[in-house]
């Protein structure tokens, strides 16, 4: 048994590695991170002078977040497109360059043409009559339009005749030597170990899980703060719903339980069809809003409690704030749980040992609690091990609605701010939680049913 559990525990690690790696690669495939978004914001509000400084800070940002390195050990991209394009700033310019590259399929010529455009434009910045032509060069990818604009610039701008002639020549060469569809072919390039993924993995293996993009605090510290609240919410509502589910099922499975069945089953069925967030909001409106009954405080966890309260009073304050969220989560999960427990109990009712127990003349309570319940446990353990992680989703909604600073709310705010390091931490924690709960379920199996033995083979 310990050998088996150890083997399972070791298998958890590759799974976590896979999930974290997938997460990392997917999050980096997206070009606009949070910081880049902030730097790129307001392209038009600043004068030309600060454009260069913003370009510099963009490069610094790329360097700091390591986005100037390739993503993985190898990369595949279209032949037309060079792999250094991400350095181009701003975004609109990069998009235009990519369009040109894909369209004309010959990167050296495209690059020569575009640097010609930029040079000529800087020299002719004061000549207002040329601006529309440059505008066209900066936005159009159509060959005739580019040639027309380039030649009219070459004719009109006599001061910088040399530059504009080069521009015209480069434009012509690019258009003449276009390779229409060759650029679509893929190329594979090897990047070696100097890549983002390699650096990230070494950091993680050294125990550095990154810092939040928002407040630069270490991710484990942020998680440790949030986890406590979620833990209490989960454990309390789990305990209450399990106890309630069992008691309700026992009531219903009795021979005289017909009236309870007729009452509870439809009610639970009805509750089950109300989505969690609607249920929580309905309770909020009914029980914590000034329009109806204001029995409970609405939001948060009651931080502003005066210090030095005796423990029972501070606990009482906590309970006030926790009551409604726990009630919501319990109500949202009770129908499914009760239904499963009831079915599991009902099937044991037809077994031989139950009949024997009845024949012995045991009281019904004793039959149910001692004989049927024990045998109904096995499927319920499986259920609970699946159920506890699934509660995380419910907790996310409940925490958001009641503004409880737990993991769920943290995830939601991290998603809204695209705070990837925090999101990664939460995903890994949740996955770990799920795997561990399956492990615990396996261990509990052999406790519930001594016939089950695990071997490490």
């Amino acid at each position: 048994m310990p050998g088996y559990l150890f083997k399972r525990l070791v298998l958890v690690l590759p799974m976590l590695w896979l999930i974290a790696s997938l997460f990392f690669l997917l999050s980096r495939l997206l070009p606009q991170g949070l910081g880049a978004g902030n730097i790129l914001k307001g392209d038009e509000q600043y004068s030309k002078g600060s454009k260069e400084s913003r370009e510099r800070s963009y490069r610094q940002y790329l360097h700091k977040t390591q986005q100037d390195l390739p993503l993985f050990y190898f990369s595949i991209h279209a032949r037309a497109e060079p792999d250094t394009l991400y350095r181009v700033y701003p975004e609109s310019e990069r998009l235009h360059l990519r369009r040109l590259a894909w369209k004309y399929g010959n990167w050296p010529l495209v690059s020569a043409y575009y640097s010609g455009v930029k040079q000529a434009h800087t020299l002719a910045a004061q000549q207002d009559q040329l601006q529309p032509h440059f505008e066209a060069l900066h936005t159009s990818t159509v060959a005739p339009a580019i040639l027309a604009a380039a030649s009219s610039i070459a004719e009109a701008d006599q001061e910088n005749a040399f530059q504009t002639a080069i521009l015209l020549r480069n434009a012509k060469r690019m258009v003449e030597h276009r390779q229409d569809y060759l650029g679509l072919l893929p190329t594979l390039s090897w990047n070696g170990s100097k890549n983002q993924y390699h650096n990230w993995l070494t950091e993680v293996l050294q125990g550095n899980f990154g810092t939040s993009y928002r407040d630069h605090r270490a991710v484990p510290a942020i998680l440790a703060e949030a986890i406590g609240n979620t833990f209490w919410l989960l454990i309390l509502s789990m305990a209450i719903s399990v106890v309630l589910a069992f008691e309700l099922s026992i009531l219903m499975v009795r021979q005289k339980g017909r009236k309870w069945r007729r009452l509870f089953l439809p009610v639970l069925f009805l509750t089950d069809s109300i989505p969690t967030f609607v249920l929580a909001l309905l309770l909020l409106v009914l029980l914590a809003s000034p329009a109806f009954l204001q029995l409970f405080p609405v939001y948060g966890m009651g931080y502003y409690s005066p210090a030095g309260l005796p423990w029972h009073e501070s606990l009482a304050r906590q309970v006030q704030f926790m009551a409604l969220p726990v009630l919501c989560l319990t109500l949202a999960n009770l129908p499914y749980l009760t239904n499963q427990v009831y079915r599991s109990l009902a099937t044991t009712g037809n077994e031989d040992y139950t009949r024997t127990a009845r024949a012995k003349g045991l009281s019904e309570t004793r039959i149910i609690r001692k004989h049927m319940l024990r045998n109904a446990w096995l499927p319920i353990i499986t259920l609970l091990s699946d159920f506890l992680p699934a509660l995380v989703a419910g907790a996310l909604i409940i925490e958001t609605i009641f503004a409880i600073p737990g993991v769920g709310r943290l995830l939601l705010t991290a998603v809204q701010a695209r705070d990837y390091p925090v999101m990664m931490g939460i995903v890994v924690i949740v996955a770990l939680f799920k795997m561990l709960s399956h492990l615990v379920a396996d261990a509990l199996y052999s406790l519930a049913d001594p016939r089950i033995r695990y071997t490490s083979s």
Partner: protein
Amino acid sequence: MNRFLSDIVRIWQLRWAFRLALIYLFLFLLLVILLPWLPLSFQPNDLDLGQAFQPPFQWANVTSATPLHWLGTDALGRDVLSNTLFGARTAVLISLPVMLATTVIGLVLGTAAGFYADSSGKISRASFSGILLSVPVFLYFGMYVPSQAFLLKLPPAVLLLSMGIAILAPFILMKVLVPALKRATFFTKQVPFPADQVVLRLIEVFTSIPRLVIILVLASFMPPSVVLLSFILVLTYWTDTARLTRAETLRVKQLPYFEAAVSAGASTGGLLMRHALPNILAPVIVSFIFGLAGLLALESTLSFLGIGVPAELVSWGRTIAGIRANTSAWWLVVFPGGFLALTVLALQTCSYYILNAMQHHSP
């Protein structure tokens, strides 16, 4: 399949709740289809800041100039009635295609996994290498290049060309390269194809994290859009159907009639399409209905949280989210939430009764 239909007819005759649920669903579908032609006084996105947070049923305020906001208005004066009705439309337009795609993917992967579960699937090394080569080619020309062409607004010829290559190249690989490889003895050797293991591992990866968490995370990688969100939903929802189909295929495979068909020499396609599929379709339909109910709730939850959907998308969740600005505006929760709960209830009632009837047959 015929038994499935006769089951439905029988429940229809016996159970009033089932009848009610089916009639409700029919009316609901009718509403969704006919909604754009209904004479509503307000469009769902019409703003009227002068009429913010109007309670419902304000008969006294009716004048001929301003039509009544039957179910009140939200923080921006948007009409709750039209938002509720159009929210139903949005929910259905997202959930139904997603569930259809999910069911198809789940059916294909699940039957493949169940059918080859005892590693009876053998494949020559030549075909295996052919498949191994085809997948990246298809991913590059079928997914990467089209997505870039779309992003960069390249001419449609590029799109057509790359899609053409994406379809043709694997075809050529399988029809030309594989026979050529088979001349070498090394490549003719048969190796077991672990279809079952592959599908099971995939399911394991996708279910290792709660669905809502995966969806939130994936949605944060992409700009908010209905199409991308649907894609994410399909990606996370197929596991249920696949698991069910796999179990059902395993069950059917052991039935005497199926073994008879195998020993009579039926082809793999014939076995799957003629013998297995009709027998596993009924549970799949039940899970389709059940999954649809779940998706309706999930879509509303996501739009309530404001994740993955554009802000201008009319939805139940968006209207309900208005309660957070003003907790006394109960009508923002009760009407869209009630409509949502009623629809989910109807769907669950249907699947409950059908499932019950099916369980009575099976030993």
